């Protein structure tokens, strides 16, 4: 069994997001392991479930509620919300997977819980309950229990000044080359404007994607063999954002640590916040042009 190198002064903030799952798998494959893993468990979901349960019991006896209905009403996950809007997602994902494997960017099947992935790689973790990524609970935990100076951020919201100012350095992989491409939907904007996938690892500050730059990478846009006439814009966009982007972020994170595993030795470059452009969520009318860049030219007609 391959022995992993501990990233001694590094902790990973893991969530239920696909980015976290890709990070864990890819780091493990490259032989790296953060010194500490902190798994964030959102309280809100359970509060929702308890609220629904109480409301149902107010009006019905347990015997009156069919098991199927009960399960449907009390189960709420982020992946369920995506899947409700996607048809034939399995076919798209298998095509995406085979191409990403061919390009040696694929980390793991992302349709499994983060806890399963942690179990598969054999990493221990601390689990803490939070309401949000800026929860005081999390801030207290990081200050009182986490000795590591560097924390890999894997998503879950925008970090506010309250957590960014506790003295830890948060490492983030942004799906665009900064400062040129900052903001939202940057995987898509990079593909459209620069005809490539760009990734930047940065030390976060309170600006949006304005932190000191650790390293940047460019990748060729993968061309997937999918018949895009069979899918909606929404399906295709969600596939790119949730099932392609995380693998590239993970690959870039590994490259960042391979260059120098000790973050204290990193030479970072300060950004001029006035440079570059801030992008916003892409309007649906522009999506077909971008999606066409991710497919073989013979499959190029997107339905709206």
């Amino acid at each position: 069994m391959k022995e992993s190198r501990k990233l001694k002064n590094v902790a990973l903030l893991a969530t239920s997001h696909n980015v976290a799952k890709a990070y864990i798998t890819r780091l493990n494959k490259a032989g790296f392991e953060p010194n500490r893993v902190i798994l964030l468990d959102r309280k809100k979901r359970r509060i929702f479930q308890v609220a629904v349960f109480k409301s149902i019991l107010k009006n019905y006896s347990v015997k009156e509620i069919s098991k199927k209905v009960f399960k449907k009403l009390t189960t709420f996950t982020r992946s369920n919300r995506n899947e409700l809007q996607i048809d034939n997602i399995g076919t798209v994902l298998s095509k995406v997977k085979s191409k990403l494997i061919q390009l040696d960017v694929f980390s793991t099947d992302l349709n499994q819980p983060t806890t399963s992935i942690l179990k598969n790689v054999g990493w221990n973790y601390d689990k803490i309950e939070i309401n949000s990524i800026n929860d005081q609970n999390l801030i207290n935990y990081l200050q009182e229990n986490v000795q590591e100076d560097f924390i890999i951020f894997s998503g879950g919201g925008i970090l506010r000044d309250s957590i960014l100012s506790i003295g830890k350095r948060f490492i983030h992989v942004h799906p665009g080359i900064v400062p040129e491409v900052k903001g939202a939907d940057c995987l898509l904007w990079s593909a459209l404007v620069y005809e490539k996938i760009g990734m930047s690892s940065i030390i976060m500050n309170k600006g949006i994607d304005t932190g000191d730059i650790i390293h940047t990478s460019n990748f060729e846009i993968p061309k997937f063999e999918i018949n895009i006439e069979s899918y909606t814009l929404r399906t295709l966009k969600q596939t790119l954002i949730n099932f392609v982007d995380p693998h590239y972020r993970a690959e870039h994170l590994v490259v960042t640590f391979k260059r120098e595993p000790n973050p204290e030795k990193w030479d970072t470059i300060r950004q001029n916040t006035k440079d570059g452009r801030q992008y916003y969520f892409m309007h649906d009318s522009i999506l077909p042009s971008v999606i066409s860049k991710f497919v073989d030219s013979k499959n190029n007609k997107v339905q709206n």
Partner: protein
Amino acid sequence: MDSHIKIEYYLDNFSLSDEAVKVYETLLKKFELNKKIYRGYEVNLKKENSFEELTKTQYLKLITCFLLLSVSLNDVRYYNTALKIGDKVNIELPSVSILDFYEGK
């Protein structure tokens, strides 16, 4: 000297001067964040000093300005936001072959 910026002036007098482009860029950011534009802002454009939102006609003028900027500055972000303003005021913009904007960089 005026203590505030009247947005109407910039809607009625399109310009590519540095000052005007700075105003348009700020309006783009404000619309993206707040989904509305007011008729007047403080000189530094950080805060509105009018509680009146643009009228539909004024939003259409803003769309026109953004489309002109998109082409002049080769900046698809203005077209992107113009589309969203179009959704707000129920106007469908002409579709554009976005790939014509970029010849690859």
